[in-house]
């Protein structure tokens, strides 16, 4: 690979400075603050703190409910990612084949990404509400069968569906762009050789999509770890009995609601490390199978 070298220039530095400053103020500085708090007991109204070393981490990691929170977060991340990406890919393939009315359809699929997570949660509350939602029809057939406040698996399913719905749009845009960048001549050549649409998809389009696929995998998993808060807050509130207490929601509940800034900071650090580790694993093991053209 060729490397590009640039001479140092004051103009370049001046142009870079605002961006670097923003990253420092909004990322490095708060992260450093969180790291510091994670090793202390911070008083919310100021007034000092006590250094406690790894005490906050020990407390969090020895809590069985924290581990179930980690487990449900991993389940949520994997399930939303698989569901969102497979739905996005299916939709993108249909749009790419330019079925009737695909232009209107394309716009319609993109906009859910612009909906804020709490709004998504609220919308799905109307779908999943056991008393008044669409799912309440199930309860008229089998009374009491659908109850988010009683059955953990139903609550988890509800947040997974809502989370996936929100993610579909983003993945869709990328899949569609990737599909449309595959040269028509390749598809046409395959068609002339007698490959039907399904065969062309499996042998031609999907292998060429792997870089996009990998990119979306990393983004989707990271997003579902860090951006699920709004959906949980409006849809289940972490219940029933902590079944949907995702890691990021627990950070909010402990830190902001319960004023335990230090415990929440320690959890943030653990979440950050977990996401970093997962991303590392993906780059190390999944990226090997990706072919960049």
């Amino acid at each position, binding site marked *: 690979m060729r490397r590009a070298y640039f001479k140092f220039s004051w103009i370049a530095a001046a142009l870079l400075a605002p961006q670097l400053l923003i990253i420092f103020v909004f990322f490095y500085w708060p992260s450093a603050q969180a790291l510091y708090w994670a090793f202390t*007991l*911070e*008083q*919310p*109204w*100021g*007034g000092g*703190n*006590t250094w*406690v070393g790894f005490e906050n981490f020990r*407390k969090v990691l020895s809590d069985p409910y924290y581990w179930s929170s980690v487990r449900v977060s991993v389940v949520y991340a994997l399930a939303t990612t698989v569901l969102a990406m497979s739905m996005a890919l299916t939709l993108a393939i249909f749009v790419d084949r330019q079925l009737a009315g695909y232009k209107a359809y394309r716009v319609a699929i993109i906009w859910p990404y612009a909906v804020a997570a709490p709004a998504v949660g609220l919308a799905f509350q109307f779908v999943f*509400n*056991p*008393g*008044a*939602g669409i799912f*309440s029809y199930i309860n008229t057939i089998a009374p009491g069968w659908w*109850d*988010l*406040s*009683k059955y953990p698996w139903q609550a988890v399913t509800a947040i997974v569906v809502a989370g996936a719905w929100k993610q579909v749009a983003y993945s869709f845009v990328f899949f569609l762009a990737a599909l449309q960048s595959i040269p028509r001549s390749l598809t046409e050549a395959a068609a002339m050789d007698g490959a039907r649409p399904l065969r062309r998809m499996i042998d031609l389009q999907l292998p060429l999509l792997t870089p996009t696929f990998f990119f979306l995998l990393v983004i989707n998993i990271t997003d579902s770890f860090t951006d699920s808060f709004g959906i949980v807050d409006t849809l*289940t*509130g972490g*219940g*029933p*009995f*902590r079944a949907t207490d995702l890691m990021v929601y627990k950070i909010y*509940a*402990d830190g*902001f*609601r*319960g*004023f*335990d800034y*230090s*415990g929440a900071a320690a959890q943030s650090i653990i979440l950050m490390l977990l996401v970093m580790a997962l991303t590392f694993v993906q780059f190390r093991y999944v990226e090997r199978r990706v072919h960049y053209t």
Partner: protein
Amino acid sequence: MTQKLATVALVLAATAGSASAEKTKFEYWYGLTGDLGAVVAETCNRFNASQDQYEAVCVGQDGYEKAVQNTIAAFRAGKHPTILQAFDAGTADLMLSGEFYPVSKLMADTGVNIDWADYFPGIANYYSSKSGEFFSMPWNSSTPVYYFNKDQFAKAGITEAPITWEGLEAAFVKLKDSGQACGLAYAPSSWIDLEQFSMANNVPVASNNNGYDGLDTKLLFNTTLHVKHMENIQRWLTDGYALLRTQAAGKTSRDSFVEGECSVFFSSIADHNTINKLKPSFAWDVQIIPTYEGVERKNTVVGGASLWVLSGKTDAEYKAAASYLAFLATKPEQQFLLENSGYIPVTKSTYEALKAEGFYAKAPYINRDIAMKSLTWSEPTPLTRGIRLGGMIQIRAEWQAEVEAALAGQKTMKEALDTAVARGDEQLARFAQTYAGKSFP
């Protein structure tokens, strides 16, 4: 001509500007939302219209929790308001931080005269230090009661709303016999089922007199009458006398009551106003929360929120804030709040005056002062002054999650309460460690 007009307008604007600049402004952040938020905003307008020295700038913060969260963030940046409306569970940290101006001291320093002895003891004790000095100004106050469907009670032959749990259970049985499928619409509430229950039944929630006497406090509610009470509720649910009615389950207990599905539900007296507005198709009334037989009933304590004056402001702002708080404490302003909400009067004189005027004899306020009966049942004892626990919000959340798990059949109620206590104790230990060497003033 146009130039002349413009000059006149400019001069006018300048005078208006200087006139408003003379007023001392102060900020007030409140947590109430919706109709009640509008009532708060209206009190500010009334205050600003009542005099021309001060101007209250009132900002809604979308909920009690957010009000406290936002104020902490603002405080750390030095941009906090002068007055904060804070709910009880969110103030333990504030008390220990010392970053507030006790209102009794504020009033003394600014020369505003308030008759502190006029406040109901159940309210006064809750918002003051051990020595009786008021920390914060009581304003929107409530206490829990139960609401019952008079028509269904009459049909079942229940002539008087029981004030014991044994009596209420007998009522549930009678209701069922009379063809009323659901007696109680139940939603777990730590405030009602644990905290106020323990007050009325004179049992401790935690050691150190519910946390007043030190930070090395341990929770005790897994050893008291509370366990039996929660087991009873669970039994009523399994035996079909009660139904679980929560937002997450699709219908709140209040909606269930208003629709006539269940005959009884427990809530704050503040709901009295809401139910009036919802206009149920049946006759209904309120009763004080029951106690168990053989227990000497005590007072319940106040809920709702109070107004805190924060540190780090100028003397002029404090003077303005004191004037606003004194304004809220007057009888017309208390009455304004009462007429536009379900809250209760906080001073004896206002209550007596209202009663003499026949305020509580006419609809829609009939019997709303049953809350006063509950609050003033006895002089507060060391166990019924209130609760001073750090991490109260998390303790409530632990209780809630564990009770829900027990009600779903995942564990027994005793196991659930034991877990809630063990986890709550960790919170308390953490709180004590954070504020090592300090104690509640």
